[in-house]
């Protein structure tokens, strides 16, 4: 279970406060959506969960399975099952996709006290999972994300997620830059990972993604706090009325 308690976050180098007392609980087996206008703190929440530098937690805590993750390095969090699918996946020139996947998969397996994958085992798993996501295997021999289209980058993120078998998946604006076909493939990939032992937090500006990844709950994040929580129908309400009621201004 993910428990975010009264989380206050500011930028390390500036006085700008972004999250102002965010409280949220995502039980295992559930998919929660966080919707909110631009600038409401959605991406900050995603980065703070993953452990990116540059943010300072001034108050509150984040517990994953009862344990605070705030002091953990990003790789320790990954080993504990935390995975962030980036809004803008990064390009790594010179590192082949397969090398990256294997290094990552075996790093987390090692930390989880699981046997590392041998080359044949790894190749078999990665081929299977790539095929399901319509990822051309040849693409994985190229440097990570270099020259990939927006859709290819997002599918590559979901493949990394599938390979690392996280128990907490945070998807940051996974629908941005996707056409309708790519959206379907990515959503199918995410849905395939839904399960009783996995919690998911889907961060999105638009309701569109939630037609494909149907959430158990929807939270509205505005001005650094959860303003409202409801069922999946809340997403439809937001689509119709916008975020104006939450920010006091048209979004």
């Amino acid at each position, binding site marked *: 279970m993910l428990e975010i308690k009264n989380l206050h976050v500011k930028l390390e180098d500036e006085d700008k406060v972004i999250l102002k007392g965010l409280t949220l609980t995502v039980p295992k087996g559930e998919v929660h959506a966080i919707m909110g206008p631009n600038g409401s703190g959605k991406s900050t929440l995603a980065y703070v969960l993953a452990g990116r530098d540059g943010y300072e937690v001034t108050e509150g805590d984040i517990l994953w399975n009862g344990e605070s993750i705030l002091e953990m390095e990003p790789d320790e969090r*990954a080993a504990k099952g935390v*995975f962030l699918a980036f809004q803008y996946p990064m390009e790594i020139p*010179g*590192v082949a996709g397969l*090398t990256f996947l294997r290094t*990552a998969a075996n*790093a987390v397996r090692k930390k989880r006290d699981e046997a590392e994958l041998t080359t044949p085992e790894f190749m078999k798993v990665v081929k299977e999972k790539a095929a399901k996501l319509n990822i051309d295997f040849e693409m994985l021999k190229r440097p990570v994300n270099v020259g990939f289209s927006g859709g290819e980058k997002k599918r590559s993120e979901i493949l990394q997620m599938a390979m*690392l078998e996280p128990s907490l998946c945070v998807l940051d604006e996974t629908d941005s830059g996707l056409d309708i076909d790519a959206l379907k493939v990515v959503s199918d990939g995410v849905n395939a990972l839904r399960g009783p032992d996995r919690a998911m937090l889907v961060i999105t500006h638009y309701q569109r993604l939630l037609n494909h990844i149907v959430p158990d709950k929807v939270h509205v994040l505005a001005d650094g706090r959860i303003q409202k929580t409801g069922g999946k129908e809340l997403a439809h309400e937001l689509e119709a009325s916008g975020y104006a009621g939450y920010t006091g201004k048209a979004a």
Partner: protein
Amino acid sequence: MTVQMLNTKAEQAILKTFEDNAARLPGGTALQELRRAAIGAFASKGLPSRRVEEFKYTDLKAGLKDAFPLAKGGADGKADDIIRSALGALLGAEVETSLIAFADGRGLSAKGEASFLAEALKTPPAWISSLMADESLNASADLLVNSALFTDGALIDVAADAAPEHPLVIVSAAGDRETEAFVALRHVIRVGKGAKVTLVEFDTIGRDSARQSSAVTQIEIGDGAEVHHIKVVAARKGSSHLGHWQVALGANATYRPFQLTVGEGLVRNGLNIAFNGQHSTFDFGAASIVHGQGHADSTLVIEHKVPHCTSRELFKTVLDGQARGVFQGKVIVLPDAQKTDGKQMAQALMLSPDAEFDSKPELEIYADDVACGHGSTAAEIDPDLVFYCTSRGIPKAVARTLLIESFIGEAIDKIEHDGLREAIGAIARDSLAV
């Protein structure tokens, strides 16, 4: 001799080294005269300071505090052991080679196509004599010292259309007799028309001895020939290596050099290449990984004399501690060299705020229909990329290594020979782990 004009200890020592050893250096009367002329020119020039443009970032006058005595050479131990320790990585990759080895400037063993230059100089064929008299090698003090003092070197003459099965490897190892010594080798290589050959120079310095080494390689590449040429210099702290390649390229020929420099010593590798025939290609990759107070300088002069030739350079430098990296690349396109296609890129990865990278690409273009470009970057490891890797469970230190290796890897990938690429990659990775 104008000794009184010189004032550094190193310069005085070099002159004395020559006087003490001149009579024993190989070569007949003609070569002895050339050696005297070279040391004479050195005596009036002295070691270059930063006021000499080509040595602006590698001030040898200040950098070489003293000159070690000329190595007596040879080894007491088993030649095999010395070669083995110098060649570890290459042997690890199980690359089959034809080997010629030197211990502190003296021939140790040779098999395959290579033989000892000192032996050939007793009755040198005309082509070797003419290479010895190459005026262009009198251009700078480091070359003059080599001309005056070289004790031996590899002689490789690849026949037209020949394609030796294994890479020809020249090993210059430190022997076990001396703790401080100066070593000078001159390699002479001729590659016949249509031949295809892979050359490797290994200059390694023993773990507990300091060396000042000088190695000049002259290569004539015939029409249609293809030459892959790799050099590895590992220089420990307190040691220096001054290398130079002088290359003449025929028509429709291909020359693909690669240089790896690692360690904490003072290294300068010069390369002058002249395109003498049309439709030839020069494709250079280099990687330097320098720690501590190490200094690695790559200085190139590429002379396009004829039309339709292509030159490419990719230089990667990783600098840690207070290390300094230097890249100087001058591309000269003479009036006749229309349709020249030249591109160079020098990139440095700065692992420490105290490291310094000096990059000076130069284009001198006298023809009007050419495509030439250059670029240069210096950057730290991108923290965003480190975060991306760590968010995937890769520990920070592993992520940094992965990113540094990928940076260097782009240049190493230019090596065509699988085993050598693997061996060079292993040496580079080992030096990153320091």
